C-alpha cells in the first residue's frame, strides 16, 4: 500500500517539476539573455523583468508543489526509490515536454544524453 503512495508521489513530483521547468524556461526565454540586460540596464531591470513575467510565479509555484511532494513521498517511500525514480523520469519527461511545449530541437544527441543521465541516476541509487 505504501508502495502505491510512493509511486503516486513520484508521478506528482515528475509532473510538477516538469511543469515548473517548462514554465520557468519559457519565462526566461521571454525575458531574454539576463547577462545582456544586466550590462545595459542594471540588476534592478533584470529582477523587474523576471518578476513581471506572468508565467514566472506559476513556474515557482509548480516547483514548490514538486518540493513538498518530494517531502511527502520521502515520508511514505524509500529514499532509494523516490529520489532516483523521480529524478530520472523527470529528465525524460522534460525532454518530451521541451520538444512539445517549448519547440526545442531535441535531436538524437539530446535524447541520448537524457537517457544516459536518466539511466546513470538509477544506477547510482542501486
Amino acid at each position, binding site marked *: 500500500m505504501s508502495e502505491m503512495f510512493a509511486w503516486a508521489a513520484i508521478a506528482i513530483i515528475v509532473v510538477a517539476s516538469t511543469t515548473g*521547468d*517548462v514554465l*520557468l*524556461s519559457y519565462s*526566461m*526565454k*521571454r*525575458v*531574454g*539573455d*539576463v*547577462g*545582456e540586460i544586466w550590462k545595459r540596464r542594471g540588476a534592478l531591470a533584470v529582477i523587474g523583468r*523576471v518578476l513581471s513575467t506572468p508565467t514566472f510565479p506559476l513556474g515557482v509555484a509548480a516547483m514548490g508543489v514538486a518540493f513538498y511532494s518530494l517531502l511527502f513521498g520521502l515520508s511514505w517511500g524509500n529514499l532509494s526509490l523516490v529520489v532516483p525514480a523521480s*529524478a530520472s523520469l523527470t*529528465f525524460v519527461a*522534460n*525532454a518530451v515536454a*521541451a*520538444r512539445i511545449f*517549448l*519547440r*526545442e*530541437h*531535441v*535531436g538524437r*544527441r*539530446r535524447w*541520448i*544524453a*537524457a*537517457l*544516459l*543521465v536518466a*539511466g*546513470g*541516476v*538509477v*544506477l*547510482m*541509487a*542501486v
Partner: protein
Amino acid sequence: MTFRKYLVLAGITVFSTAGDSLLARGMKDVGAVSLHHLPGLMLAILNPWVALGILFLLTFFTCYMSALSWADLTYVLPATSLAYVLVALVGHFRLHEMISPTRWLGIALIASGVGFVSAGPSITPGHERENPHESPDAIAQEVKS
C-alpha cells in the same frame, strides 16, 4: 557559449550540490519535523547549516534562471547533472564512502551524457532573440491570443 556561460553552468552544479548537502547536514541537528508541528520548520532556519544551505540554493536558482535565459532546457538539465557525480565523489573522497561498481557505471553514464549534450548546440536556432517581444513569432502569438 562563452567562458562566462560555462561558469554559470558550473555554478548550478556546485551550488545545488553544496546547498543540498548543507540542508541535509542542518536537518540532522533539527531532527524530524512532524506535520502537526509546522512552526518547527520555521525554527529550522535559525540553524546556521540550514541558513547557509538556503543561501546556496538561492544562488543556485539565480544561476539556473540565468542559464535558462540563454540556453535550451534540454541543454541545461543534462549539462548540470554532474551534480549527482559530484555528490558521490565528495562522499568517496571526503567521507570515505564505498562506491560500488554499479555506482561507478552510473557515474560513467552521467558523465558521458554530459559530454554528449555539451558537444552539441546550446540553443535551438531562432530561440536566441535579442528582444523576444518584437520578434515575428511573438507578435504572431499575441495576434492569436
